[in-house]
């Protein structure tokens, strides 16, 4: 009897601890899942102006300050104030066009709306959230930009090393006031937070549009649409490869054909709800012959979180912030 009693007690204690940590709810009855659900809903509705600080701790380490205007999915504007190399740059998105003005380079980069993509992927987040793909915990309360906030932690709901994202969410308006990316080793990789925020009824729609000033060259970025992989395979014009290995929790989100040098390349996108991975494929004729010659010698790491290699006449590149070991495993499984 005694032998049976102890294991049962242990199991009960562990179960209580797990439930307690995952489903912590504060005295006001709010739990982590409710905060996340409300935060996702506020993403498409909240209207505000704010001063934001962003810090990158890894890769190119730097800090930036910006003025941010946001009107849900209808508009976004970011005006860079610091560092001096970015001062004067403006990003505007009116839900149709994404424009980035870089006065120093006398360029206005124009491309498809990122807000529209955000809106499209909101369903993906909701589905993942409902299906339990995300592990959400409420860590407590804090105060950011003179406002009360709930602190939640979100990570993919599967075992293994993965980055964690922490959000400080306004307890009245449900807007995320601070975001932190924490690596598998516990170090903070990046953070963004508002120092001041003013909720308003309306922001002039002109704020979300940039008319190219005189002397500024407009550079159009290619348009693309996301489709199922099977559809893209039919129209790609070359054999599209897929990995047999993906990091735990990662699933294909879709694929796109991207115009490039009067030709096109294919990108297949994967996500585990928190991190993203893009697999690019281009036929040999599209790339610089000297780069192709280099790829013949073996894989290349052309930048942080990037890995390029060549196989059977197709040139491939993976871009992701997951570990390089995992990127290599995915690359080795592509057939």
């Amino acid at each position: 009897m005694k032998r049976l009693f102890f294991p049962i007690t242990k199991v009960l204690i562990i179960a209580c601890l797990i439930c307690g940590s995952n489903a912590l709810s504060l005295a006001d009855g709010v739990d982590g899942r409710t905060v996340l659900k409300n935060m996702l809903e506020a993403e498409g509705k909240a209207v505000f102006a704010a001063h934001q600080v962003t810090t990158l701790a890894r890769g190119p380490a730097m800090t930036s300050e910006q003025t941010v205007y946001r009107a849900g999915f209808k508009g976004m504007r970011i005006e860079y104030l610091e560092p001096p190399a970015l001062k004067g740059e403006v990003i505007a998105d009116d839900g149709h066009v994404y424009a980035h003005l870089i006065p120093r380079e006398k360029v206005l980069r124009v491309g498809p709306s990122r807000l529209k993509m955000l809106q499209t992927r909101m369903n993906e987040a909701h589905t993942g959230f409902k299906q339990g793909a995300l592990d959400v915990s409420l860590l407590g309360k804090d105060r950011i930009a003179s406002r009360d906030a709930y602190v939640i932690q979100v990570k993919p709901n599967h075992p293994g090393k993965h980055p964690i994202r922490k959000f400080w969410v306004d307890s009245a308006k449900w807007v995320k006031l601070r975001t932190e990316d924490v690596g598998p080793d516990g170090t903070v990789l990046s953070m963004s937070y508002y120092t001041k925020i003013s909720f308003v009824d309306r922001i002039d729609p002109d704020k979300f549009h940039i008319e190219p000033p005189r002397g500024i060259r407009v550079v159009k970025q290619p348009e693309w649409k996301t489709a199922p992989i099977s559809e893209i395979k039919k129209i790609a014009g070359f054999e599209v490869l897929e990995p047999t290995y993906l990091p735990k929790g990662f699933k294909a989100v879709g694929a796109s054909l991207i115009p490039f040098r009067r030709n096109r390349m294919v990108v297949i996108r994967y996500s585990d709800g928190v991190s993203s991975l893009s697999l690019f494929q281009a036929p040999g004729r599209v790339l610089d012959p000297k780069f192709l010659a280099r790829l013949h010698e073996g894989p290349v790491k052309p930048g942080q979180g990037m890995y390029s290699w060549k196989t059977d006449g197709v040139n491939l590149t993976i871009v992701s912030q997951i570990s390089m070991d995992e990127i290599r495993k995915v690359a080795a499984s592509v057939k």
Partner: protein
Amino acid sequence: MNCKELSKYIGDYVNKTLSSDLASDIESHLSACPKCAKLVRELQSTSLMVRSLSRLGAPAGFAENVRSRIAIQSESKPTCTSWELIKQWLHSLRESFRTPVFGLARVPRLVVVSLLLCLVVVGSMLVVNQVRYSSETVIDWAYIETCRDQHASFASANPLADNAAILLRERAHDLGGKM
């Protein structure tokens, strides 16, 4: 780590005398900064070339010869001013040019070292130029930047992403070492 910080440690990094933490910080910066990566490659290839030069052995009896000369000179001239030393060196240099070319045993060590140094400097300049040319042409930057931009748009469209950090990282990559 940024470009300025890296410049402090670049020599130690090339010589592999840094702690593993600092080295991994540098490696993560190098993977993101093509300019610094190029500089490190240049230094590494120069250092490799210098190390690969074959060692010149001194002729038999060279050391004994030098020691005995020092002993003789120190006995005859117990104190020497700097000027006298320079004069001696110039004199020995002049003497060395009078000796036959293949009479290396009598050529002062400094002349051999100077010649070697010139060879290394000229050689490394040639190698650096070669590396610079090849590293500029080896990566298809237009392709790589398109991949990076495309991934950034996809990643920033994740409702759970830190959009501001992704946008800043994108610009930081564009600017490279200009920040």
